[in-house]
């Protein structure tokens, strides 16, 4: 366990180095958030009755999404891992007395967390000062805030566990570009990054909420804005834990299979 904590710490402090990049990212994300809210405002103006969430809940959802983008965006996968697999450097990693799944997992967690830590505060503070329906509302109550933090962590873990599957599958396919693109666009759509899940038609929404993708950003962001509470929230939290377990197990099994038939490509 300690080995992996060291990996985590190392990556985390490495990620904190890129401050200028983070600043540029913050400005960009602020612009995206503003556009997203302007878009929803147009729909809200047209027909407030058809809106499935309150408008301030949508604003909170959008700002939280932008602030914690680095935690949940599937396209932020680690190119180094893909490079290692393609060019054969993976051989060095395999020589070490560590479990490669655990190492990559802790490393991805740290990478995403360090990016988010650098970026989230300015966005959250700025959004909190925006006028009423467009800004970030404070959490509804203490309990929902507690569950928000909890599900933020499990949501992040589910995302990383899913990305692990993509890394490991590229052991079998050699060229990771295709599988990666498909996986990324699937996550984007089904996790509520394109439009929040409540905006889907009812019957589709019910199916989507059961998929692992809904356990990523959808749960914490909706708990924060008060859109998900009571028994529905409990169900979502349990489902999140279940998916985390399933994805990690799948990853470990796949990893085991991959290690058995691995061929190193030169290097």
């Amino acid at each position, binding site marked *: 366990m300690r080995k992996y904590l060291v990996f985590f710490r190392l990556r985390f402090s490495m990620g904190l180095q890129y401050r200028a*990049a983070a600043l*540029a*990212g913050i*400005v*960009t994300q602020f*612009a*995206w958030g503003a*556009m997203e809210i*302007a*878009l929803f*405002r*147009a*729909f809200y*103006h*047209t*027909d407030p009755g*058809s809106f*499935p969430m309150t408008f301030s809940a949508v604003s909170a959802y959008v700002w939280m999404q932008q602030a914690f983008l680095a935690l949940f965006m599937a396209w932020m996968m680690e190119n180094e891992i893909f490079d290692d697999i393609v060019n054969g450097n993976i051989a060095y990693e395999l020589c070490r007395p560590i479990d490669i799944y655990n190492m990559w997992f802790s490393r991805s967690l740290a990478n995403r967390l360090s990016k988010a830590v650098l970026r989230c505060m300015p966005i959250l503070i700025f959004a909190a000062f925006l006028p009423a329906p467009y800004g970030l509302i404070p959490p509804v109550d203490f309990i929902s805030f507690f569950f928000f933090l909890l599900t933020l962590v499990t949501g992040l873990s589910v995302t990383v566990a899913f990305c692990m599957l993509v890394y490991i599958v590229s052991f079998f396919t050699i*060229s990771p*570009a*295709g599988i990666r*693109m*498909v996986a*990324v*666009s699937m996550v*984007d*759509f089904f996790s509520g990054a*394109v*439009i929040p899940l409540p*905006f*889907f*038609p009812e019957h*589709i929404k019910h199916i989507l909420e059961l998929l692992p993708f809904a356990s990523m950003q959808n749960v914490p962001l909706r708990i924060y804005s008060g859109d998900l509470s009571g028994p529905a929230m409990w169900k979502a939290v349990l489902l999140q834990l279940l998916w985390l377990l399933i994805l990690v197990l799948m990853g470990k099994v796949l990893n085991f299979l991959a290690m058995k038939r691995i061929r190193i490509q030169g290097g």
Partner: protein
Amino acid sequence: MRLYIKYFAIQFRSVMEYKASFFLTTIGQFFISFNIFLGIYFMFQRFPIVEGFTYSEVLLCFGMTLLEFSLAECFARGFDMFSIMIKKGEFDRIMVRPRNEIFQVLGNYIEFTRLGRIIQALIMFAYGIAANNITWDLGKIITVLFMLVGGTVLFSGIFLIYASLCFFTTEGLEFMNVLTYGAREYGKYPVSIYGKRMLQFCTFIVPYSLVQYYPLLNLLDRGKPYYSLLPLLACLFLIPCYLLWRMGVKHYTSCGS
């Protein structure tokens, strides 16, 4: 021009060496913007109309924007990759050749995988035209042509700014993504729905609405006749972009290799 065709052929042959990868990436490109389409589709399942625009009108708008963007990206991809070129020091090689630099940068990367997006844009565009019952006359055909030319030029101009800034920063600036990918992402809806101030910004500062919103109104028989000519005005945007590029080339100091 003959040389560009030659570049084109070379790039095409090199891409075709890896056919499977080419097709996978093309399909992937298709899916990425297909998400945006699905987002629009499901929003309109819930709302019949937004700020006076119906579903089929929005699709026409999105198809057009996507087509302009993909064309520009296909040919001006060299600018998008320019930070890598600068970092590797490849620009030195270009400087010593007796040809225009822009021309060589463009020739170095031509992105054929954007085909997936272009096909999708064409389908949406065709659907938009059919569903809106547009009656064609010469004026409308010219409007569409102007939109295509103006939009491609405008997006290329923004890619050119992105590349020019690399002369000063070496790194590509993430903020520029708002103007390129952001415009593709949010250009799915007519600019006017983002509010009046956004429309002003997109008319006078970065003239997206000149190639999108105003001529679109004409296609839908709602605008004024001179709106059709506005995309040509947007082409003037290329002048400041070019000046910035010239400044960048003067400022250029190699970073080795």
